[in-house]
């Protein structure tokens, strides 16, 4: 697998856009059209729920770390995990637990991603969690077997298994992100059901893009005036 340098890192959170729609991702991350609005809103919510990165919650068998910066050189992504939870393990499990500074025993990490809405039919939230898990694995030399998605609307957290299928999809999406970014190409719009729930539909305008009108015919029509009209 390729090892990306810091210069090539893309935003980890973008993987959810990518899973939703390639063009949406490209509009935000390549075109940067209106991205500041999206990011402002995203940042707001992030802050509401992740509090202060310097204030970690600690209990005897659980440590809750907020706003943890993450990088993955193999995926070429960087971002911030809302929450990473460390569960104390009763016994040592090879490859699944790690040491924590100032703490005794073995700890098993699990990323928790907070989402405003409700669970989705597709895996766009799961791939983001998976990318966080893979970054954690790389940074802490530990394997992460599961994580959680917490949904604001249902106030419920779902356990997500970081399995081979999810990992494959995450890697494939990441590679496509890097390919598009390298080429600097915004894919053309494909109109679909998902367009109705897309926040960037106004910038994307899938309808104009898909029903193309000839500019040549338009110019000819507009520059030509009927004799009596003159």
């Amino acid at each position: 697998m390729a090892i990306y340098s810091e210069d090539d890192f893309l935003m980890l959170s973008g993987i959810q856009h990518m899973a939703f729609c390639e063009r949406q991702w490209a509009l935000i991350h390549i075109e940067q059209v209106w991205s500041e609005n999206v990011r402002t809103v995203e940042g707001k919510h992030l802050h509401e729920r992740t509090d202060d990165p310097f204030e970690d919650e600690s209990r005897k068998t659980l440590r809750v770390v907020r706003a943890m910066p993450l990088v993955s050189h193999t995926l070429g992504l960087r971002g911030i995990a809302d929450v990473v939870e460390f569960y104390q393990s009763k016994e040592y499990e090879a490859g699944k637990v790690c040491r924590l500074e100032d703490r005794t025993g073995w700890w098993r990490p699990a990323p928790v991603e907070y989402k405003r809405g409700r669970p989705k039919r597709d895996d766009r939230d799961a791939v983001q969690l998976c990318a966080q898990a893979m970054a954690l694995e790389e940074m802490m030399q530990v394997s992460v077997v599961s994580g959680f998605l917490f949904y604001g609307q249902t106030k419920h957290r779902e356990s997500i298994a970081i399995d081979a299928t999810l990992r494959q999809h995450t890697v494939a999406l990441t590679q496509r992100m890097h390919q598009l970014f390298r080429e600097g190409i915004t894919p053309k719009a494909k109109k679909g059901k998902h367009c109705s729930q897309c926040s960037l539909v106004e910038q994307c305008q899938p309808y104009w893009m898909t029903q193309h009108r000839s500019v040549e015919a338009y110019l000819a029509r507009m520059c030509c005036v009927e004799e009596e009209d003159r």
Partner: protein
Amino acid sequence: MRRLLNTLYVTMPDAYLACDGENVLIKAQDEIKFRIPVHNLEGIVCFGFAGASPKLMYLCCERGVALSFLTGYGKFMGRVTGNVSGNVLLRRTQYRWSDDNNTAVRLSRRFIAAKIMNSRAVLHRVLRDHPEAVDQDSLRRAIQLLAGMPKRLEQAKDGDAVRGIEGEAARLYFTHFNELLLSQKDDFQIADRNRRPPTDRMNALLSFLYTLLTHESVAALESVGLDPQVGFLHRDRPGRPSLALDIMEELRPHFADRLAVTLVNRNQISAKGFVIKENGTVLMDDDTRKAVLTAWQKRKQEEIVHPYLEIKIPLGLIPYVQAMLLARYMRGDLEDYPPFFWK
């Protein structure tokens, strides 16, 4: 389609702009005169102003609200903007195209063809609606000459050739401009188009409307990630928004010229609202400027069917749509640039 938001025009000379959370405040003599949520705004234009708080500027940058400062007479002084945003790859294409004569000329022809046809449409409209009030023969000749120009334009091989035809069309158009006046004819006669400084009322009015249009064109280009300073027809000159002036060409007749004429014909402004200096230069007074701004804002809400996209949109979004279509062309989504034609 994107929502058309308001532009806030601040004309009180002692106004101080501040913010309170998500609200933009206008203060005068330490009193809050006006309050509007920032998300309702697209731009803020200050005419001769007392001050603005850094926090308000921060809010405007963060929300992509264009904050511009103009002198009391409408001369553009500056603008507060955030980071250079948008797609740097797109801007690279823009610069390469601007340097390439073939592409630059092709685009110039599009802007000017639309400008000429739109000027023609303005003259044609008065001939059709008020045949009894105008010099029909002379107008008809001008209209015919203008209609023939886009074809000649297609033969233009460089910027100078395009500018030559453009100048010819503009002279022809402004020679017949007085025909458009149906009332206050004497007071608003235009001798020829001049702007620095304007020497008659119509020129003062047109210059002011063009300034407003420039502001909106710059904001539109920036919002789609293009560099408003690097144009195709207008050459680079520090401080000049050349690309904004380019896309404005096609918008001037309908957006500014017709509005100026309407204001005069409907007696919404009068000769008394202008100050004529000893040396003959003409300035608008405060009330006239307010009347023009109100009419401008109202005009932007009017809906029209975009001739290329064939969808209904408010007039105020046209600069944005044209900027977007230009960006689409540069990105390869469109094979050519479709300028705005008003029929």
